[in-house]
């Protein structure tokens, strides 16, 4: 004799939170210029470069790509003014940053989706002859460091933060000036920053990048 079955169906019990990005926590209490903005429209999608263009808008987005999947969000980006050209002190409120003198510190909030727990951070630095510095990047509890060498220019350091917990995390980039160089030489500084999820798509850095 036989076994007969008339109908088969299954059900999955799921949560539906993947596409809901919660509100970010309050802005970190950091030393920013009085006019530094932190408006919600300054949200970077994956792969976007984040650059500084002028004081008062210390961090601004370039290359907005709306079609990018919003699995990584940067919000509430703040920068601390750089050291200015040639090591000269910059006066808050008057110094304009060139595209290649982003800042020496970045603080941001990054939203990490549970589906994409590996976050790749690309950071370009610049340093004049004889100037060296140490750069550190921290996402959540994980920190990566590297040495910005003399006369380094446009070299992108790539850090992978793996098994990052989901949710809003604090992100810090910091440079420490290690050695002086020739008078007038550019101090080690952050040039550009970008953040991207790695899995499951291939991460491709543009090889033909030309600074603005």
């Amino acid at each position, binding site marked *: 004799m*036989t076994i007969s079955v008339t109908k088969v169906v299954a059900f999955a019990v799921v949560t539906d939170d993947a596409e809901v990005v919660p509100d970010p926590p309050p802005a970190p209490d950091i030393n920013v210029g009085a006019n530094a903005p932190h408006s919600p429209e300054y949200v970077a999608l994956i792969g976007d470069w984040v650059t500084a263009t002028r004081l008062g808008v210390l961090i601004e987005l370039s290359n907005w790509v709306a079609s990018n999947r919003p699995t990584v969000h940067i919000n509430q980006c703040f920068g601390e003014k750089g050291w200015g050209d040639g090591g000269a002190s910059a006066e808050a409120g008057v110094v304009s940053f060139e595209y290649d003198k982003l800042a020496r510190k970045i603080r941001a909030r990054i939203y990490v989706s549970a589906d994409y727990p590996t976050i790749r951070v690309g950071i370009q630095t610049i340093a004049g002859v004889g100037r060296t510095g140490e750069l550190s990047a921290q996402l959540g509890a994980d920190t990566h460091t590297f040495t910005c060498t003399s006369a380094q220019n446009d070299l992108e350091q790539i850090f992978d933060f793996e098994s990052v917990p989901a949710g809003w995390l604090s992100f810090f980039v910091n440079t420490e000036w290690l050695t002086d160089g020739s008078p007038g030489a550019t101090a080690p500084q952050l040039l550009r920053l970008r953040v991207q999820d790695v899995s499951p798509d291939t991460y491709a850095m543009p090889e033909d990048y030309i600074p603005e």
Partner: protein
Amino acid sequence: MPVLWAGGEDICFPTAMASITVDVSTGTLRRREDRTRCCLMMPTIFDTTGPAKSNVFSGGSVTDCWLKFHLSGANPGFTGSNRKLAGFGKSGGNNAICVGIDNFTGLLRIQTSTGATNTVTLATAAGSPLAASTVYEIAFHVASFGASGTATVYLNGTSVVTYTGNLVVGGISDLDQVFFFGIGEAFGASNNYFLSEFIAADEDVRSWSLVTIAPNGAGAANAWSNTYANVDEVANSDADVVVGSANNDQAQYAATNLISGSTSIAAVQVFARGNCGVSGLATLGVGVRTGGTNYTDDTAQTTTLATSTALFVENPGTADPWLRSEVDALELALRAAI
């Protein structure tokens, strides 16, 4: 075992198969159409059919439990409705503690019932009645079921009525089934209401949803007669079957994927309605194929058609919580055995 039982189609309530109306209409705002193939109602009234009952919870009876379901009605305020909707019951009888709708006001309430004419309202929500043609998320929490317990109804995640006191009905001491109740009027009449997406658990279910995984193609193997097309109907047909004829005959069917946005997966539950002949094979295995291996739970069959089910609160191949990719890739599995 957080999830106790989860279902949403006719064979998930095997005690009342003949009485359940399966509504597959679209654009009627009776259900969430991206997650479901149908919603359910039972036109006949309680005292002629008894409630529709789920399979008994495989993990045993409970006294602390949550039920979530979705509800939509045809008229503003469900005017005229004076019905029990759904709740928890105990196998072997019709005793239940449940969510109902207050007569004429359309307000949710907490009820107990031993039969159609023995419904007791414990508490009724204040506020505005439910609106027509709106899919509501109803959650029902029973804590410490017994002489001194608490029952709470949540509407779209917010508590609307709570009762603390004696929850005991008909002398039962615990709960092991999901019940839903008849409406007492024909399908298409003015005061119909529709239920869908039932989830029972021993923890808060308000953030959870149910997504249907239906057969939609051939699987890895099929030693049974006929194909997935004979078991993929929304409203069950007893005349349209697949048949396993030899011991350990296996069949797998590809199935639909989760919808966009589904992330954490708390459980997968598989249902199959079947029976056996008067001799020979008498066991039906129901389950999933994942990672290249079949995992089925065996249920003894009789000559009477009945629903067999298997609940997987984790991936049986990895012993870890299900991943979305694993659920999307799984196949529904059957096994015939002596």
